[in-house]
């Protein structure tokens, strides 16, 4: 079972940032459960095979005020993919990654020098963010950059973050993560 963690403050944003990921999993007959981060229980994490922390809107930074609710990530050993806000969360829970301001909206070209869940070479990605994470490089490797880190990977744990939205363009990234194909 894939656990989808919803970080949206507004209910209506769930349809925009979580449902498209649900649809990708549904179309591929992959079981999933959606839980809001404020209602997350230990059993949800225990029952999950893999975890996706979905993104949220440009103006929504509410999750950053509740970082303590993500400290479970530090001791988790299950594969986690953070998308946009989810990437900021993954980078921030470890030795205080820095959140910086950077607005990117629309299509951008990103060079994936190493294959990342089926994505390699120059690819067009969809960006929608006002902030990004500069993770502590003792913990994370930066796999792709475009004006700021676009893809990060934890050095010892199966934790990954993408700043762009693969549920809009590059859906196969989500599918490969969900299926465990690197």
């Amino acid at each position, binding site marked *: 079972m894939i656990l989808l963690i919803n970080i949206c403050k507004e209910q*209506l944003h769930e349809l*925009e940032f979580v449902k498209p990921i649900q649809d990708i999993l549904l179309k591929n007959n992959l079981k999933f459960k959606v839980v809001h981060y404020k209602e997350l229980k230990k059993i949800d994490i225990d029952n999950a095979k893999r975890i996706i922390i979905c993104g949220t809107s*440009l*103006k929504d930074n509410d999750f950053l005020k509740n970082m303590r609710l993500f400290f479970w990530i530090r001791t988790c050993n299950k594969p986690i993919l953070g998308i946009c806000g989810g990437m900021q969360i993954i980078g921030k829970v470890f030795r205080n990654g820095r959140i910086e301001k950077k607005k990117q*909206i629309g299509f951008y070209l990103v060079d994936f020098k190493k294959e990342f869940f089926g994505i390699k070479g120059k690819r067009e990605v969809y960006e929608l963010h*006002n902030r990004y994470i500069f993770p502590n490089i003792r913990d994370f490797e930066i796999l792709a950059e475009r004006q700021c880190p676009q893809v990060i990977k934890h050095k010892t744990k199966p934790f990954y973050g993408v700043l762009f939205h693969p549920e809009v*363009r590059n859906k196969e990234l989500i599918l490969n993560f969900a299926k465990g194909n690197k």
Partner: protein
Amino acid sequence: MKCALLFSGGKDSTYTGYLAVKNKYEISCLISIFSENKESYMFHTPLIEQTKKQAEVMKIPLIIKKTRGEKEQELLDLERAIADAVKRYKIEAIITGAIGSVYQASRIHMICDRLKIECFNPLWQKDQIELLEELIKNKFEVIISGVFAYPLDEKWLGRKIDKKFIEEVSELQKKYKINPAGEGGEFETFVLNCPLFKKELKIINKKITGEKNSWRLEVEVE
């Protein structure tokens, strides 16, 4: 939260408004952009004038902004209309019916970001057939008001979106790659009735114009 619905009178913007109300958001006003350019990148709805009647039956104030429909100027006109809604109705968010157009969605995101308001796109990336099925399930009465792609012709004008329509457009999707919800501009729609309307709209006058695979239905409703 007080919101403004970016409203064209078609199925997507009306259904997105329905989803907002269902999720307890308040639609304080509608915003319709009347474009003089039929090839507009952002606004190209044959029956845009009739949004006045739809707003009346929804009992929601309508802000109309006219634009010449030139590529970047129309975005400035949209921004002025949204800024007007912020000032007059104290809205904190815009709701759009964007499904897959990154061009449209990213430009509206930028405008909302500049105006420091939220942007909701509840239909974003939604499966087109799922959307059509939800319209029927939620008692939306929607007609085809324009067709602009082969093999669609004037016979499609005025047709209601029902199960048979879904079957036929699904076939056209397989055969001709017609987007079943018309997101690629293959067809345009107009909503005659839905749960947001206090009464059903009736067509009192209609005129068909066009040629080959580009046809428009002009109607007057009351």
